[in-house]
């Protein structure tokens, strides 16, 4: 997972404004659209930290979270508060043990839907039941599942900075269902590979395969293709086989591909990601149709 590097910003006010911080896209109401993001937020809200919750939410919306890095079982972030130097926030999540994972994977592989939904970018609805049946919890529930710290002078833990990071993570959950698995100690690629194996591909264990579907397939061809010398072929004086005519119409729903992929990870832009793109797609369609029709 990528890391974000930031310069030190000169900020006079309190809390100091962060230019281009990670701004939560949720405008009002609860954070996190999906049930699993809500589930994550619910853990924080169960701590009963009162007004700090609201402040943390405001921080998240204003973009006070300047950077964030997510590793297996841990999250570190820089949050801009009132001091010139951002505070460091760390969240540690208890990872599951090897035998626990083994049980879970076996149970998950009994229904194709779990692997399929996860790969398509969605958390399967009843995945928690599978965990529960193995006496394991997917989301941290108890306080000891989750350790938080912040370098701010506030004594209370979780403080508003931690809460802010929590909310930003909540949005990231929306987009990436593998995030909770990573926090529980299992990387996406590892998980995909193991679920794939469970569907009957045990015999091949070469290093190549281990990468799973990490990178798209290589380009179809890239070898050089020498030009023909025969002038008849070279100029191809035959009339072109017209590309097969296919139905072309403007889709009733704009920006379907964008909607399928969902929000951009940790979006820090001023504009709303999906809405602005939708405008571009709607405006471009008629132009494309005119070009296709030869006008």
């Amino acid at each position: 997972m990528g890391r974000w590097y930031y310069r030190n910003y000169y900020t006079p006010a309190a809390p100091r404004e962060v230019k281009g911080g990670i701004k939560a896209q949720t405008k009002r109401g609860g954070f996190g659209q999906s049930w699993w993001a809500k589930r994550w937020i619910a853990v924080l809200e169960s701590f009963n930290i009162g007004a700090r919750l609201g402040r943390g939410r405001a921080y998240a919306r204003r973009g006070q979270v300047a950077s964030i890095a997510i590793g297996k079982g841990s999250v570190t972030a820089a949050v801009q508060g009132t001091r010139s130097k951002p505070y460091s926030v760390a969240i540690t999540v208890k990872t599951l043990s090897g035998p626990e994972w083994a049980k879970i994977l076996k149970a998950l592989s009994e229904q194709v839907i779990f692997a399929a939904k996860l790969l398509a970018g969605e958390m399967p609805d009843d995945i928690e039941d599978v965990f529960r049946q193995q006496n394991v919890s997917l989301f941290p529930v108890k306080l000891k599942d989750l350790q938080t710290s912040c370098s701010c002078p506030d004594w209370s833990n979780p403080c508003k900075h931690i809460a802010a990071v929590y909310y930003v993570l909540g949005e990231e959950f929306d987009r990436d269902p593998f995030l909770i698995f990573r926090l529980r100690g299992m990387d996406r690629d590892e998980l995909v590979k193991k679920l794939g194996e469970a569907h009957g591909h045990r015999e091949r264990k070469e290093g190549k395969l281990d990468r799973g579907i990490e990178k798209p397939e290589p380009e179809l061809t890239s070898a050089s293709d020498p030009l023909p010398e025969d002038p008849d072929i070279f100029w191809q004086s035959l009339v072109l086989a017209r590309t097969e005519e296919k139905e072309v119409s403007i889709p009733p729903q704009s920006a379907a591909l964008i909607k399928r992929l969902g929000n951009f990870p940790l979006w820090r832009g001023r504009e709303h990601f999906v809405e602005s793109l939708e405008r571009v797609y709607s405006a471009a369609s008629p132009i494309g149709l005119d070009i296709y029709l030869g006008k």
Partner: protein
Amino acid sequence: MEELARVLAAAVPEIRPEKKRFQDLVAWLPTRAGEAIPSSPVIGEQPPKRGKAKLRPWIVTAYQTDWSEAVDLLCACSRKRVLAPGIVLGNDLSYWTEGLRFAGALVARQQYLPSIEADEGDFRAVWAPVYLGDDSEVLMQLERTMPPVARALSDIGSPEATGTPAIDRLKTFLKGTLDHLVRLACREEWSVRKKATGTAFESIHDAWFFALRSQDDLIRGDKLELAALAESVCNWARPISVTALSPLRLCFRLEEPSMSEAPKRGRPRSSEESWYVRYLLQPRDDLSLLVPVEDSWSNSVAKSVSRQMTGAKVTEYLLTSLGQASSVCREIAASLKSARPGGFTLDPQGAHDFLTEKALLLRQSGFGVMLPAWWTGKGTKVRLSLSPRVKSPKMKAGSGLSLGEIVQFDWEVAIGDEKMTLQELKSLAALKAPLVSIRGQWVEIDPDHIQTAVDLLSRKAQERVTVRDVVQLALGVKEAPRGLPVEKVKATGWVSTLLKQLEGSSGLVDILPDPAFSGELRPYQLRGLSWLGFLSQWGMGACLADDMGLGKTVQTLALIQRYRRSNGKKPVLLVCPTTVVNNWQKEAFRFTPDLPVLVHHGASRRKGTGFGKEVAKHAMVISSYGLLHRDLKLFQDIHWSGLILDEAQNIKNPETRQAKAARSLNADYRIALTGTPVENNVGDLWSIMEFLNPGFLGSQAEFKRKFFVPIQAERDPQAAERLRRITGPFVLRRLKTDRSIIADLPDKMEMKVFCPLTKEQASLYAAVVKETEEELKSSEGMKRRGLILATLSKLKQVCNHPAHFLGDNSAIPGRSGKLARLTEMLEEVLQIGDRALVFSQFAEMGKLLHEHLQEMFGIEVLYLHGGVTKQNRDRMVERFQDGPDGPSIFVLSLKAGGTGLNLTAANHVFHFDRWWNPAVENQATDRAFRIGQKKNVQVHKFVCAGTLEEKIDEMIEQKKEIAEKIVGAGEGWITELSNKDLKELWKLRKEALGE
């Protein structure tokens, strides 16, 4: 460089070439004996075929366009062969126009994503195409058809041809054009953005978004941050890029319930049947292979599905795809709750939802979808339909019936061909199922439609409408209540006769030409006359689109004459291109000599109040398209009996002034004549139909929405069928090759083509005559003979073309009436795939024709003259005669090509200038009209009206048999004429001038 700049400027006014963007590049071209082999004979002679061709570098001047210029240029080139006279499109350029259309389709269907690309240390924001489903097949098809020349350019100094693979060039092109098209959608923001370029962005995401929507794609920001952004963009798009690039495709096949038990007749089946949707895997490189997903969960089968993927990858692809599909269709999600899913079952309602909605959604997401053959995509072929039943008495001759007549009718309901009773409909309505099987055939029926039908049938009162409404219902112009389709109007009595006649299933009342008609109509021309008469009588417009040479003119003249006899003295207005005004006048004089004809043309035409009076004295007014607009006021003040447009393709663009003017005139009947197949060009049809039968195709916007876009963009056969149903009754097009026509046609038809002179030609002509007459006074004997022959030759040259007379290599287009007409006629010849010989007695004129025709049409034109070697001549003849791809036009000098050759591939012979000896002309004509000719031959003899050409033509016609004798020796006899006779011979008459 100047030339390239000139061509670019001529092609695309938007391009303003900058000097610094011209550069020298190397093109690797097939070369033989030190000469590059030209791509087409249009642009150069083929070097002799000695030795093997080798690729050699040639330095060429190139102009580096940006994507915006490239798109403008390709739009200008779309589906053309010639951009402007002399600018012929190469195969590569035509190829890229197809590429651009594909990019346009991707943009229209929104198959692209915002992306970011590393470029020599910088990062650029791009809109990247996504090739899902069928698009990846189109991509591969385009890759296969790319002409190698499209990738032959490389930088100067490269030791060998780069050989960039076609797919790379293609992808670069598609990415560039698509990116530009999407940016165009943001162009309103460009100016604002330009100003903001200097400001810093709050985040790298803002910088990316900014660069995506401005003209400049460079993203400004920290390089490390940008690299990280590029990675996260790649991760974000992964769920789609994985499926887009996969060599496999997941398909869904809807399978009908097995019909093991034959249902009882008449009892609709619908409930308790289960349909099945089967999951299948299909490799893109072998679409015939379909592997059921049920089996592919085992590794050994999975491995065999694709050559490019490991078994594990196949499973991963399958899981990802099923996961994506499951959010489109909840039945898929449900099916995945097992270890090895292979499909799911559906009830009829579910099957209907799948057909109408989910299949579309899945297809849109890039999956393959296979549906039963009876499903057409817009519904089933069999559907519920209404038939109004109209009762009317038998038609009585001359009963004065019109479309305004009121009739009564009842509704009748059918599904497919089966008539449904109210009782049956009620039981269907009770089922409330959208898919029912009636006698073994699955049918989609909207339960609301059934209810509407039940309501209509239950109603007691009859409906009263005009016959015009009935006609419009029958043709599908109008819809029945609540949008129900009207399949067929059933009628009795005269309304039935009228409808059958319109649809062509019942014979028309024969109309015979007026006794005063001087000439003989062939059987198909009589049919044409009856058809024109039928539509005219009912006040409906007709488009007669017979092939060139079948006699649209005589049929029209016979109609005008007939109509004048029966419908009083109102005049007819005939509008045609300037080049055929003379022809109409001559033909009218020949076939309908009793009709007074007024040519409203030229500077001396009547204007103001005198016009009306003058018109009243005539049966027919001939004018041109240019004047139709300029003298519109005059024309509008008269109520015309008929309004006839010749070469009606002149109003195909409804926005032009002549099209608007034509629509604004008053006339009892309207006729459009054209030799080009209008019915094949959906875009042009609206304007002509709107002129003929206003409102039948709806407004222009409605037409675009209901017909043009569905037919052109969506390939909707039903829309095409609807359009044919509405327009069919009003278009009559017979081809020379139709069996019934061939039988009626003589093997050889000779026609004179009377052409006007341009102003330039007329003044040159007058100058030559004046000069000669001065000299003639003082010359005698040999000198006189020489002078006369030289003058004849000069005058013929002037009639041919000013550049021919002046011999100064000056510009060609727009200066000769004959050449303009020849070009128009050859265009029709080419459009219908015929071949033509063009003879001239002048070698210089032949050369001029050869060059001009090649430049106008962008195709190879053969030219045979005295300087061609026997070997080359034989080769030309062979190429002209052989195969479907040979050249279509052959220009010959009369001397070199007039005898001996066998050119039966041609069925048109044009004599561009006249030889006073008919025998010589006939001999030339016989190159095509001889044993081996399988088609009818049309001979077009060009004559400049009002000049000596016409005069001599008359003399030959009048005394043909004498002419054979005296003219036999050539033109010598003319020199024996007296000065007075000569003066009469070459006098320029008023009608010569076309302007």
